[in-house]
């Protein structure tokens, strides 16, 4: 995770917003990790070159959200909304709900999040791939278009399967994202 947080330093404000959107999507779906499907949703709901490219190829936010949610639940991704994690601690005598109530009172609502969704291995690899895209283009900053190319980098990734299921030509989408990246 240390490498990933160092990479964040180079994210544009929009790319950072896309990551927050990805985390929100994970929390909304009740998942305790941020995967590449969440990154894709985060990119689609954030302004910038990535969402423009997605839209240009027919990938609309609502269709992406429902297809991703459907496919994740079909392959057995648990939507526990943190219940399993809280249960594991409750058998240890730790009351997560009580900690949250007290933390909200002391530090403000939402200051304590458990379990806080962490990046999955493939999402970390996507972020690293986005850095490589920037390096290859000789660019300092990582924008949403680099992130999108990072998500699309791993052949057979579930995020790519979501796009394919929606009838989107992923190779053409890559090409569009790459040309916008090189223009920008």
């Amino acid at each position, binding site marked *: 995770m*240390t490498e990933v*947080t*160092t990479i*964040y*330093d180079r*994210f544009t404000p929009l790319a*950072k917003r896309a*990551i927050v959107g990805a985390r929100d999507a994970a929390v909304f779906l009740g998942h305790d990790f941020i995967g590449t499907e969440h990154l894709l949703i985060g990119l689609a709901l954030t302004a910038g070159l990535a969402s423009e490219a997605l839209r240009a190829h027919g990938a609309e936010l609502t269709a992406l959200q429902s297809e991703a949610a459907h496919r994740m639940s079909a392959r057995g991704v648990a939507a526990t909304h943190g219940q399993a*994690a809280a249960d*594991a*601690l*409750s*058998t*240890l*005598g*730790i009351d*997560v709900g009580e900690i949250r109530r007290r*933390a909200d009172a002391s*530090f403000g609502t939402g*200051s*304590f*999040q*458990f*379990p*806080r969704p962490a990046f999955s291995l493939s999402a970390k690899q996507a972020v690293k791939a986005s850095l490589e895209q920037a390096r290859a283009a000789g660019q300092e900053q990582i924008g949403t278009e680099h992130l999108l190319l990072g998500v699309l980098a791993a052949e057979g990734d579930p995020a790519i399967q979501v796009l394919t299921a929606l009838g989107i030509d992923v190779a053409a989408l890559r090409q569009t994202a790459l040309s916008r990246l090189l223009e920008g």
Partner: protein
Amino acid sequence: MTDRKAPAALAAQVTDKDPAVGLRAVLELRRLLEELERLHVDNARAEGWSWQAIAEALQVSRQSVHEKHAARRKVTGLEKTHD
């Protein structure tokens, strides 16, 4: 669960012969620990503590606490980027 029963349950869970039970307990404790560290580091910074003071309180090096939390805080706008 009553307080009286909790320590016994903790002892049972973290010494369970089933690796799945014990490892799950360790995972969730680590996640809880990470979240609490994040919460209290943020609070300490908001209270004006230096990275050095936080590092000493956590008994780790200034560099490791800074590496772990400063970039994250910059991303979320909690920390100025020149730090």
